[in-house]
């Protein structure tokens, strides 16, 4: 690989303060050898044009800030390699949420759904002096669930969420719901299931599996949703 290379971008731009409507901007930037990830390239681009706006923080895939639509697929800029990326690199905001500016979206609806599943442990027993015990096997049930970084790649790639963002909890929220249903320390199983028993909140998931395809942490919301549906079914019979 040569040390300097120029890459082409096509970026969704919109500043409500000055633009009547959004447009796609063609722009290129020369990268240094140390620019390995898409986020590095965006930072380089921003040094050239400081009006380009995007969220970013940890740059290592744990904070969930820099989710965007990259060449048609949702992902994190910081985990997207520049080595084999197709040019021009087309960047758009996450689909289905209101755009605030450039690739920055308003995530209110996404977090509202997350909050709606009561994303906290419910255990009404008096707190013991020491930790509540949990076997390593029971703890393992939480693997693949608790690691979610709330980046919204999944929910904003889900057609059911696009249609009903106000009624369907969406893959991220449902993954979190199952994280608490699966926790042996949690006592609110039936309350949690009641909260999801509705034609929209849970059952709008039609196993399209876009969520699984895009999750930058390799989590599987569809599987978790299937398990919630199983619990519902077992409860009904």
């Amino acid at each position: 690989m040569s040390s300097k290379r120029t890459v082409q971008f096509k970026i969704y731009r919109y500043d409500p303060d000055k633009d009547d409507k959004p447009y796609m901007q063609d722009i290129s930037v020369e990268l240094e050898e140390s620019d390995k990830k898409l986020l590095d390239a965006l930072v380089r681009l921003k040094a050239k044009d400081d009006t380009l706006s995007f969220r970013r923080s940890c740059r290592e895939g744990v904070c969930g800030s820099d989710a965007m639509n990259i060449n048609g697929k949702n992902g994190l800029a910081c985990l997207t390699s520049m080595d084999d990326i197709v040019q021009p690199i087309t960047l758009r905001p996450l689909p289905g949420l209101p755009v605030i500016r450039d690739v920055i979206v308003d995530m209110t609806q996404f977090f509202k759904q997350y909050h709606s599943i009561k994303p906290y442990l419910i255990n009404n027993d008096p707190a013991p002096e020491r930790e509540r015990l949990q076997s390593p096997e029971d703890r393992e049930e939480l693997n693949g669930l608790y690691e979610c970084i709330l980046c919204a790649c999944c929910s904003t790639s889900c057609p059911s969420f696009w249609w009903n963002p106000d009624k369907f909890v969406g893959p991220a929220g449902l993954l979190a719901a199952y994280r608490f249903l699966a926790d042996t320390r949690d006592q609110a199983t039936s309350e949690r299931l009641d909260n999801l028993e509705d034609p929209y909140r849970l059952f709008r998931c039609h196993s399209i599996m876009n969520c699984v395809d895009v999750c930058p942490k390799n989590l599987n919301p569809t599987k978790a949703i299937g398990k919630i549906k199983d619990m519902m079914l077992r409860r009904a019979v």
Partner: protein
Amino acid sequence: MKVAKRTFDAVIVGAGGAGLRAALQLSEAGMKTAVLTKVFPTRSHTVAAQGGVAASLGNSTEDNWHWHMYDTVKGSDWLGDQDAIEFMVKKANEVVVELEHYGMPFDRTDNGKIYQRPFGGHSQNYGQTPVSRSCAAADRTGHAMLHALYQRNVRANTQFFVEWMAMDLIRNANGDVLGVTAMEMETGEVSIFHAKATIFATGGAGRIYYSSTNAFINTGDGVGMAARAGIPLEDMEFWQFHPTGVAGAGVLITEGVRGEGGILRNASGERFMERYAPNLKDLASRDVVSRAMTTEINEGRGAGSAKDHVLLDITHLSPETINKRLPGIREISIQFAGVDPIKALIPVVPTCHYQMGGIPTNYKGQVVVPKDGEKNVPIVGFYAAGECACASVHGANRLGTNSLLDLLVFGKAAGETVVSDFQSGQLKLQPLPEDAADVSLARIARLETQTGGEDVHEVRLEMQRTMQKHAGVFRFADVLKEGVTKIMDVAERAKRTQIKDKSKVWNTARTEALELDNLIEVAKATMVSAEARKESRGAHVRDDALDCAETPNGRDDKNWLKHTLWYSEGNRLDYKPVNLQPMSADVEPIALAKRTY
């Protein structure tokens, strides 16, 4: 420009571990609280902590707080205040168990207790053998902790102001703190948050260095705001360089890797730590390991074509252990080093990681400053906790896993102090000065109108390169001196930053310019304090400090067993004594000794 005013019982700035832990105390006590945060809470940098949180639960190996206290004082190279350290280690079990009750998914031992692993500098029986003291959720402890704390705050109905950037501290003529000004990033509007109590939990400023494990957001906002408001910064010369940042990328590889059995090797494959720390070897304290690595590299034993890094080896661990205990590290190695650690060695270098100094506080979380001949007088209405604060428990060098413990213990303590001051009626809503928002509005106006100014990106880069070159792992008298001149020049340039983006909406160019003002305060404090401290202690090691019987390892207790206080105004230094006295009679002071591992 008209400025909106909002009134609260308390305002907390920052929603990482410390801010969220403090917020819980206030919300649960029914105080009307605003938590300001420039990122959604779970995006705060606590999320990136990996290896664990210290507590002497003794779930796997025998342990007690006395040993933890000894390790922490020794780790601090005796610069830590022993009252605050005693307070922290005694509270550790309580705050960790509390977190488990909140739902934190700790790994488990076979009998169902919280899993604990060994960590650098933590020992049994006063330095004898490694102890399993780090309570861990795989290698994602910070993520699990931050989410658990956020979730508990959702339950407690805490009121968040998400994507609001605090700009300046508001003080009255008496010096009391009355709140902050803050800018809503979506609209660019400035508001006054008027409160009876203000808690800073704004994290560190690791982005003053070119190579850092820290997130982009770690720009020392609270520390900068405090410095500009006339509050001195304590012990800012002490910066932790974490031994294992991914070479080239800077991304953190937890010390937990070595806790699980990982070994550092030089180019010839030698386990070189045996030569530097015969007892704890790869699990010696971070400053010791970082210096050993740098020495290996400087003496030509580094790996790679440029011989500029060393190698972290876990190939002898089973793939099952790696996948179970270190799954995140495997991901990071593949992503950022192009190496699967099951099969190959990870290239690592010491990388700036943690700010030991900060806003001076006592163990209750009150901000304390010298006044009328007294050294530690609380500022009315002002509290701080976590990395932005200096209690001081880490002194000259922090032990791994003590940072997550610090933010839990002191986040809670600051919250408790505020609640008790509030309930006793001690806290009052004092009248705002007429000009409360003027400084902030002037900063915004300057950015609007500046012409012929300096590029934010360029000035920041110059600051980062200067810090990296002049105040690194090893420090040299002449290089530090030159560094002071250079950083003061950079600071002058930072006063004239210019941005092209003039939008009101989500103007990140403006945010970065405002952040640079904070970073610059931290950079100046660091360089000036480091140049002045003529000894080696913990993470501050200089070439002209002689290692002899009088000053072991170059540490000069006779002249330098004291905390630095740096004032932004006049670039002035002051000092105050270290508290060598524990807070209770439960423990004897840990006597000064030469530090070896």
